[in-house]
């Protein structure tokens, strides 16, 4: 099952690449994801990584050679496997799945799926045995997060043994029930949106992330929280995070462009806001969903998020309680984190990373004063959200947090 490695489009505009340096020699063992070579693109020196396991059987080109995108660069296969049949298949015209030699005996060979050498889209296809698929569904395991040990990276039953919460993520099949009216609207992709999606996708991987960071002055929000908690007394306790969730939900309701799912051939803009709240559990994390967050009171959000988080840690969430979020928030505030970025949960288009609120000196009206500040970083799927779109959302969020009364607007 030899696989031809082709020159990949490592930048959006790249048409050819110069192989600067081989990182693997012929005969070296290669695993999916290993760097095979350094490639100079029109913009930078990038790494060409392996898309298959095996041994580097052949370097098709020498260092310094320029290879068009899709052209053969190397062959990966089983030890001792003949290269002749495979190398002849290259070069491919584009980053299509490469030619794969067939085993000689159809009777004794497993019907393995061809190993793809495509850099972006094809890697989204999860290979898994039917049994593994069924078990994953039953256990709420996201197969994309499971390393398959079968041929071509196929996830098989043994890969799921012990894959508990570590692989538990957010299946995306469940659709939230609409509260009223239409839950979302599907918008066909425009040509420019398709091009953006394709080119950005090719450059970075399945989801072309970009990141926006802002620092929020939390003085008023913190004061408001203290006042509210005083008033509530025994009825409950509002956390900074609750205020943040409420503000995020309200900001999303005003910036529907960020409250969306990437659906490959279209974008689904949600008219409802369902916030996923990342909760650390033993061995991993899970993201329970607070439905219609924007319509819930702070107290409701507070109560619900505590309750969901509690059950999440006990692993007693039902599938519908951790599926169907439209945007996620990940808060590492309790860990004294100054800066981090969240990884988007597809098909969502964004996730907000919340750091630790710290008191620090800042200039206010020309005076250095100590203020409580909170750093927020939003990860955006560039196929859905452009820079300015994300920035506008973040600005609204910042305004709401800095002036909590704005939430009433």
């Amino acid at each position: 099952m030899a696989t031809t490695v082709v020159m990949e489009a490592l930048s959006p505009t790249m048409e050819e690449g110069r192989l600067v340096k081989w990182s693997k020699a012929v005969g070296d063992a290669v695993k999916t994801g290993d760097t095979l070579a350094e490639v100079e693109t029109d913009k930078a020196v990038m790494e060409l990584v392996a898309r298959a396991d095996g041994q580097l059987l052949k370097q098709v080109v020498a260092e310094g050679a320029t290879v068009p995108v899709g052209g053969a660069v190397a062959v990966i296969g089983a030890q001792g496997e003949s290269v002749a049949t495979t190398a002849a298949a290259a070069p491919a015209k584009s980053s299509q799945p490469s030619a794969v030699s067939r085993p000689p005996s159809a009777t004794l060979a497993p019907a393995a799926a061809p190993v793809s050498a495509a850099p972006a889209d094809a890697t989204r296809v999860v290979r898994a045995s039917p049994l593994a698929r069924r078990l994953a569904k039953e256990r709420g395991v996201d197969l994309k997060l499971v390393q398959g040990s079968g041929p071509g990276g196929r996830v098989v039953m043994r890969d799921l043994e012990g894959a508990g919460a570590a692989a538990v993520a957010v299946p995306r099949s469940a659709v939230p029930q609409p509260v009223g009216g239409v839950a979302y609207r599907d918008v066909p992709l425009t040509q420019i949106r398709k091009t953006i999606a394709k080119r950005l996708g090719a450059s970075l991987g399945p989801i072309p992330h970009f990141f926006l960071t802002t620092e929020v002055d939390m003085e008023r929000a913190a004061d408001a929280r203290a006042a509210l908690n005083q008033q509530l007394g025994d009825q409950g306790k509002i956390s900074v995070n609750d205020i943040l969730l409420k503000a995020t939900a309200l900001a999303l309701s005003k910036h529907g462009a960020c409250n969306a799912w990437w659906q490959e051939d279209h974008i689904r803009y949600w008219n409802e806001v369902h916030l996923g709240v990342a909760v650390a559990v033993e061995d991993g994390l899970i993201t329970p969903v607070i439905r219609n967050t924007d319509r819930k009171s702070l107290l409701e959000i507070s109560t619900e998020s505590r309750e969901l988080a509690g059950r999440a840690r006990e692993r007693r969430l039902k599938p519908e309680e951790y599926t169907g979020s439209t945007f996620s928030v990940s808060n590492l505030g309790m860990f004294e984190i100054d800066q981090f970025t969240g990884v988007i949960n597809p098909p969502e288009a964004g996730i907000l990373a919340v750091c630790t609120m710290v008191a620090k000196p800042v200039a206010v009206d020309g005076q250095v004063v100590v203020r409580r500040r909170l750093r927020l970083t939003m990860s955006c799927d560039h196929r859905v959200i452009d820079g300015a779109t994300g920035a506008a959302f973040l600005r609204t969020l910042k305004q709401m947090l800095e002036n909590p009364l704005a939430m009433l607007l």
Partner: protein
Amino acid sequence: MPTITYRDALNQALREEMQRDPDVFLMGEEVGLYQGAYKVSRGLLEEFGAKRIVDTPIAELGFAGIGVGAAMGGLRPVVEFMTWNFAVLALDQIVNSAAKMLYMSGGQIPMPIVFRGPNGAALQLSSQHSQAWESWLSHIPGLKVVAPATPYDAKGLLKSAIRDNNPVIVLEGEMLYNNKGEVPEGEILIPIGQAEVKREGSHVTVICHSKTVSVALKAAEQLASQDISAEVVDLRTLRPLDDAAILASVAKTNRVVVVEEGWPQCGVGAQVVDLIQREAFDQLDAPVLRVTQADVPMPYNKQLERLAKPSPEKVVAAARRVLYLD
């Protein structure tokens, strides 16, 4: 419990059924005076006479058709083919007459007939005498097809076949006739259409029939030494297939290897694989693999013949692959 050979188990079945029902008779080449080419009918001529143990000329089409005609006339013939390689000459009567008589007569004319004889390869008999016909025969609606692997199953299935009101194909094995096994005294009737788990296991199912049962059992032994627990399912009847037994084992092990003596294309294993992918798709952890005869006419040379046949080693290799161990 007495231990007897597969040959004698068949002989017992014939004798008991002929004693039980005077309409049962045996016809075929060398079945009488010569006592059977493989001595399955030993002693029967003496006991039942030439009227009921009928020596025929070498004319498979003719005597198979005469058997069918006799069944139309109310008798219960057992037609012996010296081997199924020769029975191919009689396929017109088996397929066009026996299998279809009940249907095309609108249910008026039942066809209680047994066609039996050795099937598959023996040793170094070369291309024309080493063929497994089960996929041909089990293709045909209106036929039942059984392929016993043990003396016990041979007796129980042949007796059931003789009492069945339909044409039943009994596939025996030249290499099986000398095999010994425990066969209890008295009546054994094994229902047609029931597979049997010949060895329990939990990691991988090996589905087999007839001669490949011993191949599968040997493979299971080898696998056990590698801490792999193989379940051996003997189909015993190829038509109708015991779907439930196959699916139950797949649900248990999630991995399957199907072994047969026939060629790969359109084989019995292909039918089993169809059933499994259709009815047990979500149970599968790996593609089902098949071990068959090589897709070539059987060579004479001993080494080549060994390469062509299914073997425990091939089954072990396939089992390890469905377990993702190789």
